[in-house]
């Protein structure tokens, strides 16, 4: 079998896996949030509503695909693909275990960010092409938010790359033998989680799609399968970001007793559940507060983290100093936010 045929098969399997995961995630989110809100969530389709997601998928598939008269047809139809494709391309480099990976890339970490940045254009395009002012507003918000948060996101992960000395995800996992990077890079992990929530447009950063303000933002005019593709991409992205966090900060498949893939899934789902939990608890920020948060807090914090990590590497400090220093930075920063916020 030629190499490229094998690659295609691997990609197909990965995409299949992600699609199934998305269905599970959608069901899980509805159940988790339902229980947090003291209700049951879906109960009627299958055992505890387990067939709800497939049912929804079928419904979306057979639904009429409406293209508004005011829309720019060409861009309107293309936009979902532009969101969907990059996100599924990023799956390629995520290592589930050492062997369960489509392609281990030397620049794996960088690859994920670079490719997924394209999907912003898809969202902006969707909003622009809809010919709807709410969609336009939403896409302007999405553009501003996602471009801004990409910067702290990339910087947060740079610290890890420095400590591990590599952008290869497999090497990064191997470097976490004995000590997970959540200990060495708590600031990095914090920034990563916050910034990726913003990248995902999820609560409390669901400003571009805010129901109560811009009624669904860029997706407001979409229906049927095109809307389904956006929905799918959002959850796929959630999974990928969580998996990435699990790999980079929680040592991926490493763990005692259980098989590697199970550890990987446990860690990934732990992060996913935290994201769901946020959604059930927090209100939404305002766009200017969001920008302030990115530029005036997260970015400087990421710089400080880089500085400390650099000092640690150059002067060859013991590991505990890096840990203590990082925790101290985090504590000072949170205190600062509190004090400044109150003033």
């Amino acid at each position, binding site marked *: 079998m030629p190499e*490229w045929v094998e690659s295609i098969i691997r990609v197909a399997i990965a995409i299949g896996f992600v699609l199934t995961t998305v269905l599970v995630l959608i069901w899980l989110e509805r159940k988790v949030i339902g229980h947090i809100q003291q209700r049951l969530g879906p109960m009627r389709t299958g055992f505890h509503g387990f067939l709800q997601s497939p049912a929804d998928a079928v419904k979306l598939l057979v639904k009429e695909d409406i293209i508004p008269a005011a829309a*720019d047809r*060409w*861009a309107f139809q*293309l936009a979902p693909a532009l969101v969907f494709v990059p996100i599924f391309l990023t799956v390629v480099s995520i290592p589930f275990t050492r062997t369960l990976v489509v392609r281990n*890339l*030397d*620049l794996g970490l*960088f*690859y994920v*960010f*670079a*490719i997924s*940045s*394209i999907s*912003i*254009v898809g969202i*902006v*395009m969707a909003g*622009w092409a809809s010919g709807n002012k709410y969609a*336009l507003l939403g*896409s*302007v918000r999405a*553009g*501003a938010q*996602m*471009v801004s948060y*990409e910067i702290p996101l990339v910087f947060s992960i740079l610290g890890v790359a420095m400590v591990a000395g590599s*952008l290869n995800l497999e090497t990064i996992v191997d470097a976490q033998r004995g000590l997970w990077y959540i200990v060495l890079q708590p600031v990095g992990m914090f920034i990563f989680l916050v910034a990726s929530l913003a990248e995902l447009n999820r609560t409390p950063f669901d400003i571009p799609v805010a129901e109560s303000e811009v009624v669904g933002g860029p997706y407001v005019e979409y229906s049927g399968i095109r809307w389904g593709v956006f929905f799918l991409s959002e959850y796929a992205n959630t999974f990928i970001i969580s998996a990435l966090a699990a790999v980079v900060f929680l040592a991926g498949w490493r763990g005692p007793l259980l098989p590697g893939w199970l550890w990987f899934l446990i860690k990934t789902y732990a992060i996913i559940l935290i994201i769901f939990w946020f959604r059930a608890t927090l209100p939404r920020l305002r766009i200017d507060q969001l920008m302030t948060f990115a530029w005036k807090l997260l970015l400087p914090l990421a710089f400080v983290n880089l500085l400390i990590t650099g000092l640690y590497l150059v002067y060859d400090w013991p590991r505990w100093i890096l840990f203590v220093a990082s925790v101290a930075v985090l504590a000072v920063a949170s205190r600062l936010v509190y004090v400044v916020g109150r003033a």
Partner: protein
Amino acid sequence: MNVPLVLFWVFGAASLTAGLLVVTSKNIAHAAFYLLFALVGVAVLFLLMAADFLALVQFLIYGGAIVVLLLFALMLTRIREGPVIVGNSQKPLAIVAGLALLALLLSVVFVTPWPKPATEAIQRIEVPVIGESLFTDWLFPFEIVSLVLLVALIGAIVIARSGDD
């Protein structure tokens, strides 16, 4: 015919077409979208030449950031008239400039001593190498560029804030 060659022709043609569409498109937002495809096509070409890092940078900076900012500016400035290019008085000037650039590129193509085809495998450029050469051989240009960017940044802030009070 091997796979990389097919990919080269496909993506080369795609980015050329997209590039042409950028300049011929009447709809300025469409032009921006075509620009994205042109840039992505070029990124894939980089990838084929084993310049992974450059390709990813192309994706991140040009695809993810520049095009978004371009669209952003379009949306905020020109909502009422609609994003249609009506006419352009700078056409002759653009033709002259384009031809001049073409001449320059062609001369570069002919002057450069290209390596004999297929005599040696393409050298993969590792990231540390790029980093090192940036901070040794190219330190001065690198610093100049960052200074220029800083000036641009400050300028942008000044322009944006001038309307405030």
